[in-house]
Each structure stands twice: as structure tokens, then as C-alpha cells.
């Protein structure tokens, strides 16, 4: 994939040829980007898509020569073509020199993934915007300030005259990214490089930021280089797409070609994984329907949880049937994680009851039990955590991690323990030969399997999975989801599956509860909630999800849900 797309007539804005960026390490040289070529035309959007470690971020940073030390461009050229016909090779410039600094921020600007940490915590937003203006446009202080206010207005920050003197930590997540965009656009760059700018944001905020970038692009005619791992986003905004994997280009073409006639198997896998989330999992389609009349295994009634002033859970009532997968979906701050943790009694809920029906038919209220009762209930209710790194003690071997529940509950020890651990590892698709290894020797997906093995050790009846797959790359995500469903069939488990991703919920779950600000706003059949929801919030949420098809880019359907009582206040996130 070394040939640059032939563009008839005029020169592209930026041409990258045979770029190689490497990091010298003690053990040798690590090539993050290998022999990469692409080009961007003025006014167009190029999406670079790939999973973690694909080198997409390093590519973006190489263009401005701001790769983190000790990274350096080893070969290739990055030609920035001026409208007059002259061009500069950015790769040849001294990374600390005046020439590249004149390009940074003026011709090519950049925004980043974490708007909070990408803005200085001790300087006002205005200070950081005017800086670029004064540097490149030689404006006076007053001119720069006026311009900064107008920029903030352009990115739709309310009350820009006041907002300019605020600090980043006084902004909400979406506002911070808007401020970053205002800063990047300050000098009217010809190219905006956006490095995963919406990954840290909720899906509704993401939709708004994507709209904003598209509108500004149209107004200013700038080109956009958009780095992302999300094929849905790519489908919505890309003119051209570059698919990267392990530092090399797998496929390069127009969005239409990539989505509707992909050639490379890796590209097909990426697209397939998004399309899979458009429907129910095959495993689930093969199952007989659930017995809806069975007595619920867990019944949550008016569960409330208060942290100081904040109502994290507000009278939540929902039930879980035996063998069912109940999805809980919501954006950040909706209380979905609090709910999972309350069920496990990692938090003590402030009010309400959680009635758990044991296998012998007796019912206990999980909210009230303690000591021995809680301990025995926790054998039957288990949890899979979100972070496959933080939830495994790095100082214990895998055998110790998986075997600990058996050991401390006095179920098995010695030889028997070892056999059970081996069996459990096989069950989750891990090679038992690796049981003496420590968690650091495993990849993210493998670690999540270890976490699942630990969860099923005690033959539980319910597993609470809190964002169990959101830290994983798409290619691994399905393996873990399918594993969970296979185990469900084998062990007769009921899941409470917490996620922010409606697609995953649609794929996994029988029923869904939608949470919004601590309340359960809608509960229903997964099929229905994920496709034709009743509640306006769910509808808004669904409308914001980028559809993985470049032919379906109707933005007019999108809207933001505004709580009826708060309609008069300005609710901007």
C-alpha cells in the first residue's frame, strides 16, 4: 500500500510518503510506523482507523514532529503543499526549529483525546487560546481576546465573555473539547489533526462534537485528519479511510470502497465487528425463549444510593429472571456502575431492597444481610470488573488468583485445587500450562478471561459484568462476549450486563434497563429498546450512535434529550 492515490489536477494539501517512525529501546528499535503513505486534500476528511498499538497516533504526531521522546522519524517525507505551489518537507525540519514551529498551530493544528489533561489546569482557557493568536498572528492582547471570544462563540460555548476567564476544570467534558477545538482553529489552519477526540466522551456528546467539526470544516474549508478506533465514526465522517494494523497500512481507499467493497481481511473483520452489533448474537438466536413467568432470581425494589448530595441511584426497581441477561445501559454518571456495585454490596445502599431467591426457594434481602449470610450470598453472586489490569492482583500467579475463592471458602486445596484451576482455565479458553505465570504476562483479553474464570469458580448463579468488554479492542471483544454467552448456556447463569454501548447490549442481552441520572427511565425487551424505544432519552441516545454505513449519514435525526423540568435552564455538556 505504498502508492499514493492519484488525484487528477491539483496537488493534495499534505502528502506523506514512506513514513517510518521508530523508538530506540534498550532491547533494540521498535518501529511504530512502517513505510506508510497517504495524502489529504484540502477540505476533505481522512480517517486513520486501527486498534490499540496500530501506530495511528504516532502517525498523527509524526506529521507535526511531536512524537514523544525517544521517538523519531527514521525515513520518508511529509510534504505540505502551499497554495502558491511551493512545498515544505516537514520530516526534514528540525523538531525544535523555528520552521516547524511556524507550521504547528498555524498551518496544521491538533486536538487530543483527553481534553482535561490536554489543557493546562492552572491557566485560563482564554489564556491558552490567545497564546496561539499572539504567537502566529501577532495580535495585540485586546485583539486576541476579542478573537478568542468569537472563537468560543463559534464552537457554541455559552456566555463566551465569561467562559474565557474560566479554567478547564470548571468546564464539562464536552465543553473542554469544544475549547480545545476553538484553540486549534484559532489561526485558521489548513489541516486539523484530531487524535481520538471523542473517545473519552459520551455518545451524545460525541455526536455533537462530530457535528461541530463537520460544520467548521465546511465553513473554513480545512482538511481533517481524524484518528479513531470506531468504525461507526469513520463511516459518518470519512471521505477517505486508511486502515492501520501494527504500524502498517492494511487498506487505503474511499469510505465507500472500504465499507462496501473491503479487500483486506483485517478491514473486513473490523467492519464485521461493528455490523455484528447491529443485531442479536447468533448464540442467542439459537436459544429457546426464556420462561418469562419463572420467579425472578433477583428482584430490586426502590433501590437508592446517596453519596452526600448526589443521588447516584434514585428508587430503581428491576428484576432478573433465571438464565436471563439483563442489560443496564447509560452514559457516564447515570448510576449504572453504582447499581452493579450495590448489588454486590461493595456499596451499602441507602434505601430499598434486593430480594435474592436462593436455589432452595428461600428469599434473602441482599441489602440487609451481613457477615456469614453476605459471604454465602457472594458465592452465588459474582462480578467481572471493567479493568482487566486493575482487577487482578499483579503479585499473585494466575493459579492463585483463580484458586483463591476456592481456597478461602475451604472448598478445595492442594492437588484438588490445582485440578480445578486447570479445568477452569480450559473452560475460559486459557492454556492451563500458563497457570504459574503472573497477570503481567497476559494480554488484555486473556486477563479478562482470567477475571471470568475467577467469577465462575464458585458455581455462581448470577454474574454482574460491569463494562466487562469496554477496555478491549473490537477484535477481542467478541471473543469475550461469546465466551460469556457460552458459559451462560453451560452453567445456567443469569447476567446483569452493564455497558455504555447499546450495540453490545443489543448483541448480548434479553432485556434492557436504560438509566439516566440515577433513575431507570425505560425497561423492556432488548430488541425493542435498542431499535424502537419509547422514552425520549433512549431515542436521543439511539439517534446519537454513529451508523457504520457511509451511505447513511442523516444527521437531522439526531437530537439531545433535555429533561422536561430543566428545559428552561441552559443544559450544555
Amino acid at each position, binding site marked *: 500500500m505504498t502508492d499514493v492515490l492519484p488525484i487528477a489536477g491539483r496537488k493534495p494539501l499534505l502528502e506523506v510518503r514512506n513514513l517510518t517512525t521508530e523508538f530506540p529501546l534498550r*532491547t533494540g528499535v521498535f518501529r511504530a510506523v512502517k513505510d506508510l503513505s497517504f495524502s489529504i486534500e484540502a477540505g476533505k476528511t481522512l480517517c486513520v482507523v486501527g486498534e490499540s498499538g496500530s501506530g495511528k497516533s504516532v502517525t498523527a504526531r509524526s506529521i507535526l514532529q511531536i512524537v514523544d521522546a525517544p521517538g523519531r522519524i527514521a525515513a520518508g517525507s511529509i510534504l505540505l503543499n502551499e497554495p502558491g505551489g511551493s512545498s515544505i518537507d516537514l520530516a526534514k525540519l528540525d523538531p525544535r526549529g523555528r520552521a516547524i514551529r511556524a507550521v504547528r498551530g498555524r498551518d496544521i493544528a491538533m486536538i487530543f483525546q483527553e481534553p482535561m489533561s490536554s489543557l493546562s489546569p492552572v491557566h485560563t482557557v482564554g489564556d491558552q487560546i490567545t497564546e496561539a493568536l499572539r504567537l502566529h498572528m501577532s495580535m495585540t492582547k485586546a485583539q486576541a481576546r476579542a478573537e478568542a471570544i468569537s472563537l468560543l462563540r463559534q464552537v457554541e460555548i455559552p456566555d463566551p465573555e465569561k467562559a474565557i476567564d474560566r479554567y478547564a476544570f470548571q468546564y464539562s467534558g464536552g465543553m473542554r473539547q469544544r475549547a480545545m477545538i476553538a484553540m486549534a482553529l484559532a489561526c485558521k489552519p489548513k489541516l486539523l489533526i484530531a487524535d481520538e477526540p471523542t473517545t473519552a466522551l459520551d455518545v451524545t456528546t460525541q455526536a455533537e462534537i462530530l457535528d461541530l467539526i463537520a460544520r467548521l470544516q465546511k465553513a473554513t474549508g480545512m482538511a481533517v485528519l481524524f484518528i479513531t478506533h470506531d468504525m461507526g465514526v469513520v463511516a459518518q465522517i470519512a471521505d477517505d479511510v486508511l486502515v492501520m494494523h501494527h504500524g502498517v497500512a492494511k487498506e487505503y481507499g474511499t469510505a465507500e470502497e472500504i465499507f462496501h467493497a473491503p479487500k483486506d481481511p483485517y478491514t473486513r473483520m473490523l467492519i464485521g465487528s461493528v455490523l455484528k452489533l447491529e443485531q442479536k448474537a447468533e448464540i442467542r438466536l439459537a436459544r429457546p425463549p426464556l420462561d418469562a413467568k419463572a420467579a425472578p432470581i433477583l428482584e430490586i425494589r426502590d433501590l437508592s444510593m446517596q453519596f452526600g448530595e448526589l443521588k447516584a441511584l434514585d428508587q430503581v426497581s428491576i428484576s432478573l429472571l433465571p438464565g436471563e441477561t439483563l442489560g443496564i445501559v447509560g452514559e457516564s454518571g447515570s448510576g449504572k456502575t453504582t447499581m452493579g456495585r450495590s448489588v454486590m454490596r461493595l456499596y451499602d445502599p441507602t434505601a430499598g431492597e434486593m430480594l435474592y431467591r436462593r436455589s432452595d426457594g428461600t428469599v434473602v434481602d441482599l441489602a440487609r444481610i451481613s457477615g456469614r449470610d453476605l459471604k454465602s450470598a457472594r458465592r452465588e453472586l459474582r462480578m467481572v470488573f471493567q479493568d482487566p489490569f486493575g482487577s487482578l492482583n499483579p503479585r499473585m500467579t494466575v493459579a492463585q488468583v483463580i484458586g483463591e475463592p476456592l481456597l478461602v471458602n475451604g472448598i478445595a486445596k492442594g492437588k484438588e485445587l490445582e485440578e480445578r484451576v486447570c479445568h477452569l482455565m480450559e473452560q475460559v479458553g486459557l492454556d492451563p500450562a500458563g497457570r504459574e505465570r503472573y497477570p503481567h504476562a497476559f494480554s488484555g483479553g486473556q486477563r479478562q478471561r482470567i477475571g471470568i474464570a475467577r467469577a465462575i469458580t464458585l458455581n455462581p448463579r448470577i454474574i454482574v459484568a460491569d463494562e466487562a468488554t469496554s477496555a478491549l479492542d473490537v477484535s477481542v471483544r467478541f471473543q469475550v462476549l461469546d465466551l460469556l454467552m457460552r458459559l451462560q448456556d453451560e452453567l445456567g447463569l443469569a447476567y446483569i450486563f452493564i455497558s455504555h454501548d447499546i450495540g453490545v447490549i443489543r448483541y448480548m442481552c434479553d432485556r434492557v434497563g436504560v438509566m439516566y441520572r440515577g433513575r431507570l427511565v425505560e425497561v423492556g425487551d432488548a430488541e425493542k429498546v435498542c431499535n424502537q424505544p419509547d422514552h425520549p432519552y433512549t431515542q436521543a441516545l439511539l439517534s446519537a450512535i454513529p451508523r457504520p454505513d457511509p451511505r447513511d449519514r442523516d444527521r437531522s435525526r439526531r437530537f439531545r434529550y433535555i429533561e422536561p423540568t430543566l428545559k428552561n435552564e441552559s443544559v450544555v455538556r
Partner: protein
Amino acid sequence: MTDIAVTNVQPDRAAVASQWQLIWWAFRRHRLAMVALVVTVAMYVVALVPGFFAINDPTLQNARATFHPPQGLHLIDTSDGFSIGLHYYPLKLTRDPDTLAAIYKEDTSQKMPVVLFGRGYEYSVLGLFRTNIHLFASADKSRPLFLFGADRLGRDVYSRVVQGAQISLSIGLVGVFISLLLGIVLGGISGYYGGRIDFVMQRVIDFVLSLPTIPIWLALAAALPQGWPATLQYMMITIILSFTGWAQLARVVRGRFLSLRTEEFVAAARLDGVSEGRIIFRHMLPSFSSHIIASVTLAVPAMILAETSLSFLGLGLQPPTISWGVLLREAQNIRSIATAPWLFMPGAAVVIAVMALNLLGDGLRDAADPYNK
């Protein structure tokens, strides 16, 4: 984020490496810290059996060797053919005819061999048994070897420095041990329970940390009666030093406890049905023990400096107890050091010991967490 810091070992070895192995691999790369480790171990070996490494009885006074200057050791002798062997030449005492000041001159006519594992004065090994075998001994006891010279009473400075290592180095360890006990108990309570207890404990720790230590120690040390036996004095001084030393360690312990309490693997262990005791000892303690060891290593030199300062000011250990601080009192007088600059030798010992421990602690701290880089 959780990449392993150690990358230059075979992946298979790293896969089954426990935390201590990973720490050791990371530490080993720190060359200066390795040197410091060797120096530290050597110093503590000396401190364990100072008598073996000393040459002359450190308490023996010698009127004929007042301010005797240091003597050089020679290895090769060419005066009479060629021979190899450690030897020195005794110094001859003459007096300046005008000022009557002492003048020492090397007398090369008398070659005094140094005997390895020779016999010297009798000393006790850790109070277990007595012996008179020394690493070095001079063949003729009437002409002693003063490697670092002699002090105002003609006592051998080298042997006194070696002997002083025992008290000075151990006082740091004992003091830190007491501080650590207090720090772990108080910091642990504070960090584990949190809430109001934590708040009060934090205020107390902040308060203690904002106190200037030396005036407080001086006041405390002034309260010690003069005539106490050496061991009691020693214990009291360590307790005094711990009086303010615990706060720093308590803060470290508390911080670790607090951050570990929110770790997901601790929550996971709780859900596994692991008892509180096992959570603390099996999950939390191994996670911060390496940090504690590093903090402790960095606290020992501070204690050594403190003891030295106190004893130097005359409010710490008292002669005839021999510690580096007590020895440095001899150097307090500008006239003494002008005639006998070798009285600074205990100071050099302090600097080397403290530097080695600081470097060691620094290397340990860098290697303490092999899971986060």
C-alpha cells in the same frame, strides 16, 4: 500503562517472575545503587564485629602518641632488594627546639610488617565469645599502627571510627524500627479506617511534621540524666529520634493504604470471600512492602545524621561511649583540627555511610513498583 519495566529478560522468565524478582532485576540495572548496596553491606558487617576490623584498642590512651599523624601502608619494599608484603614505618617523635611542638618523622630504618589475621587486643564478638584475632595486626605492639592518626589522648582514630560504626549505624536501624512500628500502626489505622480517625491522625501527622526536630530533640535529650548507663542512654536517644521520625513513615503507610483500598483487585478479593486479615496480609501488605522498605532505607541515614548532630552538641551519647557523633566532638575545637585535621575522619565515615544508604534507598524506590512505569 501496566507494561513491565523489565524488558531485557527473556519473556518466559518474566512471565513467572514474582514481584521480588522483578524488583531485583530493575534494581540491578541501577549501577550506582548496586555499588551502594555493596558498601552498605560491608559497613554493616564491620558494625557487627568492629573488634575484628580494628587494629588497636579504641579506648587505649597513649601519652606518647598525642596527635600522632596517620601512617601510610606500604606494599612493596625496595630498601633491601625487592619484597612484597604489607608494612609500615613507625614515626619518631622529636620536638621543635623553639616551640616544643611535636614533630613526627617516618623512620624508614625500621620496617614493621602488618600481619593478616594476627593477634591483638581482646574483644568480644556480639557478647557471645571473646577473641583476639584481627583482620590486621601490627607485629610489634609497642609500635602501634595509626592508620588514621591518633587523637588528643593518643587513641587510634581508625579503630575508634570502626568501633563507632556499631553504635552509629545501629542507632539508625533501631530508631527507624521503632518509628516504623509507630508509623505502621498509626498510619495503617488512619488509612484503613479513614473518615474521622483519619482526619484527626492527619492533623497530628501534619503537626509533628511541621515541628523543627533539633530543638525538640535537644529539649528531650536535655531531660536525660547525665549518669545513665550507656545502653539506657542509647535506648533513650533512639526513642527520642523516633518521637518525630514516625510521622513521615506514617504518612507513607497511610497513603499506600488509601490508594490500595480503592484498587479493584482488593474489591475483587473481598467478593471472593477473603477475610479482612487475609486482604491486609495477602493482598495489601505485599503491594506496599517494597515501598516501605525503600522509605525505611531513606529514613535510616536521616537518623544517623540526627544522632551524629545530637552527640556532637553534647546532648546525645556521652563519652566513653564511642559513636561517630561523639568522636566528632573532638573536632569541635578549631585548634585541635588545625593541628590534627585527621580528626575529621569520623565525619568522612558519616558522609560515606549516609550517601551509600541514600543511594541504596533511591535505587530501591525506583525499583519498588515493577508494575507501573
